[in-house]
């Protein structure tokens, strides 16, 4: 499959070469000679949005895991677990629609506008929030949607920790919070692995991002600005790309890049996970 994608993207790779990754132009033209495309903005946007989303996911899923496994009592625990499971399977398009119609206006009025007014001198807050469709919105919805997935992985890993460690910690008279700190230390490589897997999923996520990121071909690091990610670019440009000679191969080149990054992240994640598993069961 990746060979196929490479084959499809070859014309664009040959024609634009390194320019693909260093410019942000998107200029389709009837004359193939005048066409010019660059993927810098979507590549940066993709990495930015998904790394941010993963960073938000991290505290949410770790606390959710510990709350479910250690703090809550049986009935409440089962309830919270079912909620997390339901969230995990909920179609992403539902999250996307909710993010674009409910969360985006809310964020714009109550979070982005005050931050822009008072902290506008900080570069990442320095652009005026216009529509609510922004990097921040996209990463937040993405984080909400991927938290259940990471939590499920973490609960699985948590249950894999041999009972002797937990017993030892309790025997030493540790409080719940100290237990959490110790067990978290033990779980850390697994947490990083799960986050890498989540990052790989976030990179390829199309629906949520395309509905919330604002879809603008713009290179920006400001949180309140709209941009493109590779999947959102593909989703929004695919229909019209058919008409031009080099647009489609460029989209395929973006897809190839995305495939490589996301396969790489998930490979490292899975490998780390297996390493941890074999280490913990000595």
């Amino acid at each position, binding site marked *: 499959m990746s060979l196929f994608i490479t084959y499809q993207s070859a014309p664009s790779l040959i024609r634009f070469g390194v320019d693909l990754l260093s410019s942000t132009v998107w200029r389709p033209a009837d004359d193939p000679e005048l066409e010019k495309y660059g993927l810098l903005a979507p590549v940066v946007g993709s990495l930015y949005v998904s790394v941010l989303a993963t960073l938000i996911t991290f*505290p949410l*899923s770790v*606390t959710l895991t510990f709350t479910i496994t250690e*703090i809550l009592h049986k009935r409440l625990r089962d309830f919270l677990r079912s909620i997390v499971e339901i969230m995990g399977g909920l179609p992403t398009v539902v999250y996307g*629609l*909710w993010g674009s119609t409910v969360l985006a206006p809310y964020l714009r009025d109550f979070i982005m506008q005050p931050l822009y007014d008072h902290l506008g001198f900080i570069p990442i807050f320095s652009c005026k929030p216009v529509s609510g469709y922004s990097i921040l919105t996209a990463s937040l919805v993405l984080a909400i949607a991927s938290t259940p997935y990471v939590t499920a992985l973490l609960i699985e890993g948590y249950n894999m920790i041999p009972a002797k460690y937990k017993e030892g910690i309790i025997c030493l008279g540790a*409080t719940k*919070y100290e237990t959490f700190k110790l067990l978290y230390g033990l779980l850390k490589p697994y947490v990083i692995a799960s986050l890498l897997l989540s990052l790989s999923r976030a990179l390829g996520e199309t629906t949520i991002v395309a509905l919330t990121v604002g879809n603008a071909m713009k290179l920006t690091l400001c949180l309140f600005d709209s941009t493109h990610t590779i999947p959102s670019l593909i989703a929004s440009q695919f229909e019209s790309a058919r008409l031009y000679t080099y647009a489609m191969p460029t989209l395929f080149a973006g897809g190839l890049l995305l495939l490589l990054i*996301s396969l790489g992240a998930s490979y490292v994640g899975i490998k780390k996970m297996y390493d941890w598993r074999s280490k913990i069961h000595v």
Partner: protein
Amino acid sequence: MSRRQALRKYKSYLMQLLMIFISITAVTPLFSIFYTAVSRGGRTLLEAGLSFITDLPPTPLSTRVGGIAPALVGSFLATLLAIVISVPVAFFIAFLVTEFPNTIFSKSSEVFIRSFSGIPSIIVSMFVYSAVVIRMGTQSLLAGSIALSIVTLPYAYVYLTSALRSVPETIREAAMSLGMNRLKALRYVYVGVSRRYILTGILVSYVRAFGDTAPLLFTIGFLMNSVFAGLLQPSNALPILIFVYALSPYEIFHKVAWGATLLLIIIYLVLFLVSRSLLRGVKL
């Protein structure tokens, strides 16, 4: 109790409270989603009544909400077809991998199928577009199902492997000692023993595929003027309809999108609960 100990205790309580608070924050979006879907989608459903599931979608300028019949039919059919394609393949590989774990074939197919789950589904969509759609000349229900089946393959595989692995060793040995070969044991014993697991696996894969948008994006098309045009003709799907309508500027489309979302959530919850209750009955 010394002061130090008291301090530790309070710190622990405080942190636990904080954790519970963060956890609740993490799941509130679900309730917000349900609330919005019911309040907005419910209004659409009430306005359109039963015709919402039997009528054709509205045009941007129409005053009536219309219905989403093409998307519903397309979704059910495409997902069914995807499952019909992917489950046998996944089952075959799962059988080989659990029964003969040390052959080159099963090792490589295990790696192969696992790496499938790392492929972004939009890439699958592009792949099927250029491999199937361009060759057939048109977007079609079949192309959509092929894309969906590629995406569901790893899920189906994971569930079916754990289903086959759940067969207790004693039963396995008993089957062997009756002189069955592995295929016969699979047919008469393993499938029967793990049937609830297998059913749950199929159902869960169905749910997954039902809500998936990206693989269908370039493959299934966007049928508006009839309910069902044929297997090799463009069709429509519920998530695609919601996605396209959410991006469109027309108010009426947003209305329909919310109605469709409410329906999608209801279908999802029903399938989820069914698979849950199936799994609860599993006792070996």
